[in-house]
């Protein structure tokens, strides 16, 4: 009986170990396929033509700068919305709200995180952009601003949950020490708790921004999809196009193996590398702080 148990346990352990390694395999696989289909771009167009400011694939113009600026302006706008509201909500839930309120708010924010992006994009088309058009007297409501507002809303749950965990993790002793010294709760939050949760808050912001950069459907539906270079403040109020929307909109119509096809994969590669950079930065913030904490405790 012992023998068969050993064999069974051996197989299970092997399977579990293999599953553990699977994450690395998948990341490598994804990168491999993006590169495989994206690198041929360089054989067919030059780097300088990619850095052009015209994106007009029908006439072989593959300048990706307008797409990059489009993503950038929408993401920055989203961050301007998500960071204050997300951190504010996190502070409220973690430090100010009474317990019963917390039990209502946390599920509600989680609910927002579960809303499909296509539903928000849908409401963006039917409700938000007509409203913006009328409110700001614009020719169209399908603008970077609409995208930023909705993306901010999509990024908020991420920011709230990570930041709230970070604030929660600050030891009670810190707050009690400040109160004992005569600080008000407000002063304690901003001078003690928040700085103590600094790395977690930073991680929350980075992950939220990462979420915004990667969002596809919402931006595709409300930002107007005009690949125009977006570098002025006024660009916020006109249509733009993001990298993600470009891929989603045009992939269905390209011939497999054509230059357009390869360029779209190349854009995918760029997006992959951006999210890789953001995530490595976010996790290195966590690792670095852990080491510091170990040094302090020893």
């Amino acid at each position: 009986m012992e023998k068969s148990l050993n064999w069974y346990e051996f197989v299970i352990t092997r399977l579990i170990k293999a599953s553990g390694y699977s994450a690395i395999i998948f990341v490598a696989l994804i990168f491999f396929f993006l590169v495989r289909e994206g690198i041929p771009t360089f054989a067919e167009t030059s780097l300088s033509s990619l850095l052009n400011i015209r994106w007009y694939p029908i006439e072989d113009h593959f300048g990706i700068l307008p797409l990059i600026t489009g993503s950038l302006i929408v993401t920055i706008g989203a961050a301007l919305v998500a960071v204050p509201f997300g951190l504010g909500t996190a502070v409220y839930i973690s430090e100010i709200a009474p317990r019963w309120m917390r039990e209502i708010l946390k599920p509600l924010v989680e609910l927002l995180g579960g809303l499909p992006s296509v539903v928000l994009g849908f409401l963006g088309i039917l409700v938000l952009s007509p409203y913006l058009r009328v409110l700001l007297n614009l020719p169209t409501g399908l603008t970077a601003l609409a995208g930023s507002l909705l993306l901010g809303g999509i990024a908020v749950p991420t920011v709230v949950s990570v930041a709230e965990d970070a604030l929660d993790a600050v030891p009670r002793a810190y707050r009690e020490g400040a109160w004992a010294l005569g600080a008000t709760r407000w002063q304690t939050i901003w001078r003690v708790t928040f700085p103590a949760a600094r790395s977690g808050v930073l991680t929350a912001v980075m992950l939220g921004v990462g979420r915004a950069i990667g969002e596809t459907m919402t931006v595709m539906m409300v930002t107007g999809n005009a690949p125009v270079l977006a570098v002025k403040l006024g660009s916020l109020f006109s249509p733009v196009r993001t990298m993600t929307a470009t891929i989603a909109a045009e992939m269905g119509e390209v011939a497999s193996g054509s230059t357009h096809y390869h360029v779209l994969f190349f854009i995918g590669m760029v997006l992959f590398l951006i999210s890789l950079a953001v995530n490595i930065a976010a996790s290195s913030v966590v690792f670095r702080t852990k080491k510091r904490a170990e040094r302090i405790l020893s």
Partner: protein
Amino acid sequence: MKRALPINRHLAQRTGFTIISLMAFATVVPIIAVVIYILIQGLPAISWEFLTGFPHNGMRAGGILPAIIGTIYLTIGTAIFSVPLGIAAAIYLSEYAADTPLTRTIRIAIINLAGIPSVVYGLFGLGLFVIFLNFGTSILAASLTLSIMTLPVIISTAEESLRSVPQAFRTVSISLGATRWQTIRRIVLKEALPGILTGVILGLERAAGETAPILFTGAAFFLPRLPHSPLDATMALPYHLFVISTQVPEMPIKIQYGTALVLLVFVLSMNLIATVIRSRARARRQW
């Protein structure tokens, strides 16, 4: 430091708290408003024919049954691939892995998988499953793509759940002559199961609502029949909503809202089930 009057400090606190509370409500109220608005606008479209019939007249009339069924198929398909693999990987990280550079690389890989844009998953799925493995635009390709996307969510929530089981249980179990796997199966996994289940449902909820990963890997605009096999393409609720709200001229608004409502109900009921499981488990915990 300037000597501040006590009145000023409390005023500052009162003001600060008010601003922060307003921010929190400004975040939360739109969520409720969105749900209620879609409910009000979409409810008139809901009828037995709507839920069980096929689209007619270029989507402008009839029902959305194939989209509903398609989403159910895709969710099941995603579950089949991502759940066993995700739980096994979580067990590895929680119960077997030591703190080595390899383990840290695995964790970074998981964080990265979680951050990859959904449309990039679509590209990957296109490159690997549709083209290279020649599955074509199919439920199979779309499910596999969605599974890899869902994997990090399942792994991280499952691992957290496993880790929350007190270490003392494992020590006691081993001291009574259990092997590591016996300990995991009989004690750790059993206690972590509600938490794992919650994570699984939340992960599948996200997969059900995603459009970009299925755009090029499995979604079809219109199919006259329900899919027969995993190699068939399928309609799906998120994709259907996208199409009828952006590509179909003269689309009745009522049907758009109705579709949005059905998708919302699908997704939110999963959310509700997960929340209920989580709170019931917390109440019955034996530690």
